[in-house]
């Protein structure tokens, strides 16, 4: 699913980004890369999303949220000692 369709208040792991440059690079530089944990906080009527990533709250427009593919984070352990998604066998 996309970050736009994700549920409010839930935790997710970024699977991949379908964004084009330079938006893709911009988000990567902010640490939104494959396997990064995110927590969706809020969604506006126009589809903009607020989410938590690496201890920072980011607000992104619909055009970005629609192209960030995520899947649910099923780990119970919420701290960062858990390794990134790659170890869970998630690959594109």
């Amino acid at each position, binding site marked *: 699913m996309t970050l736009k369709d994700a549920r409010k208040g839930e935790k997710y792991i970024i699977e991949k980004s379908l964004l084009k440059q330079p938006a893709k690079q911009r988000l990567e*530089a902010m640490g939104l*890369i494959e396997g990064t944990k995110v927590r969706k906080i*809020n969604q506006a009527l126009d589809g*903009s999303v*607020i989410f938590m990533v690496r*201890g*920072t709250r*980011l*607000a992104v427009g619909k055009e970005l949220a629609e192209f960030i593919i995520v899947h649910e984070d099923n780990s119970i352990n919420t701290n960062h000692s858990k390794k990134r998604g790659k170890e869970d066998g998630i690959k594109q």
Partner: protein
Amino acid sequence: MASNNKNNAIHSVMYNKKYEAEELNIGFVGNPNSGKTTLFNAYTGARLKVANWPGVTVEKKEGAFKYHNHIYKLVDLPGIYSLTSYSIEEKVSRQYILSDDVDVIVDVADASNLERNLYLTLQLIEMGKPVVLALNMMDIVEERGMEIDLHRLPEMLGIPVIPVCARKKTGLNILMHAVSHHREVEPKSDYVVVYSNLIEDKIKKITARLLKKYPNLHNPRFYAIKLLEKDSEITSTCTVDVSDIVDKSYETEIINRKYDFIEEIIEEVLVNKQEKTEMTDRVDRILTHKILGIPIFLGVMGLVFFLTFTLGDGIKGILEGWLESFSAWAEEGLVAMNTGPIIISLIIDGIIGGVGTILTFLPNIAFLFLCLAFLEDSGYMARVTYVMNGIMNKIGLSGRAFIPMLLGFGCTVPAIMATRTLENDRDRRKVILITPFMSCSAKIPIYVLLSSLFFGKFASLAALSMYVIGMAAGLLTAFVSTKIENKADKSPAVNQLLIELPEYKTPNAYSILVYVWENVKEYLSKAGTTIFLASVVLWFILRFGTIGYVEDMSLSFGAAIGRVLAPVLKPAGLGFWQIGLSLIAGLAAKEVVVSSMGILFGIVNIESASGLGAMLQTLGNMGFGALNAYSMMIFVLFYTPCVAALAVIAKELKSAKWTALVFLFQLVFAWVASVLVYQIGGLLI
């Protein structure tokens, strides 16, 4: 070799040159919201603006101080997240860091948000200059019960790490001590971030090739990495062909590796990590609510302006009393000194009347800036971009464009400069065009004067309506220009919102006071310079005519100038030479419209009860009523901003054609709008 390749982006960084006079150039770099500007202010005492949203430090700010026998020259760089070449700020920062102008980099990081801040740190270290990490906001770290291993962190990063607290001014001396020592430290041979074998192999090959061409290159590894990332700026300026090694962009791999390393660091140095964000989440549930968000924002702004007009007025009454007694005292004194009547008129009518009137509006202006500072410092302003994003998208802009517009309520000059945070030129042009429609604080005296003269108990409402109309007209203008653009261009640019929302915090009293004082000082110095000068010039052209000194101002040069404009303004109900002249004078600074009316109507303090009555009578005799007043407010709202704002617009647009277009557009818009108000209003009344 550097001198042979002056135009080349690749130049050597020879930081271990001999230092004369113990002068140290220090660049302050850091993420937005890391408290970088607060730390900078703590050293230099240069009271710079402290803001709370990304990208506010759009100008290079400098300051210097002496400590022991060193002269420390500090440069405050824009707040950035990375050192790529996407935005103006990142490019400016990177070029500055690579230049010989800087000896040591102080990387200011928010210790309570280390994970985000370390990415920039790793990039800075890679650039090969001496870096000292200043861990700011250590008090918040403690407050949250977190701990940072201050022994392990410098070990892992290979640079000195100094805990500081800019707000409480602790750790400042130790930081500068570390800076003065660290500049002599030779870079270590091993690298902080080691990439995969494939990438390291490519870095080695590129480095060798670069060194062959530029044997003195200090930081070939940085350039090699940038070439592997296919960084547009470095790639286009590099004269060494590496296309056989760089078969594709390795940027994603390089970013991933850095974040992997950051996770390793966080795991080792951060104890008791927790997301202490419940408060912010709770507040955000209301303030960024999908339905309530916009009404709340409008309510907040309505309250700000309502309070500006009502609360400010109370204190203004006291100042008016002072001004009146001062003016009477000055006149008595001048008469006692046998001063000629012309000089008395210049001082009492021209200077005290012109400048004094403006000073009585200080409480309104101070209060407005207090509110703006409060909104910024609490963290609410960044939320406005999210709340307004939907509406802004409909008119072809990103929610981010709303920040310059909000700043425009204070002063157009910094608002125009804040458009630099917008990514594409088309958006910037659009925002620059509409920002002057957001009524700046200098227009407050005009609204207050006219509406209290003509609208009685509805005065605040009439003044408030200027903000609503201005904002609506701004949004409409952006909407229409987007439609025109899209017709010309089949692939309109998509405006994507991307902004960090800082955690809510209790605004810092010191930061707010500094911000308000900065703006009040600006207002006072404007009263002492531009408005003073304009008042003297106005007095002169109103008191002298072809026959010399005139008692009757309608025979003056000023009246002649005003009469040229009067016929043009007639359809707007403003066809009086006095009004025409004061509007022209208003181009120097908007407050001058009011001071010129003070001189014109020969009233020292037009805001006092007797002054108001006298002016109302004079205006009434001229046939200038409530509708004319409202039309004039509309004209002032829209017409060309002051020269200071125009200069910034010209500088930012970098085009005489566009600047002239903006100038004309606003003038024509003001005329059409006020004509519509006057003509339609005339039919209704």
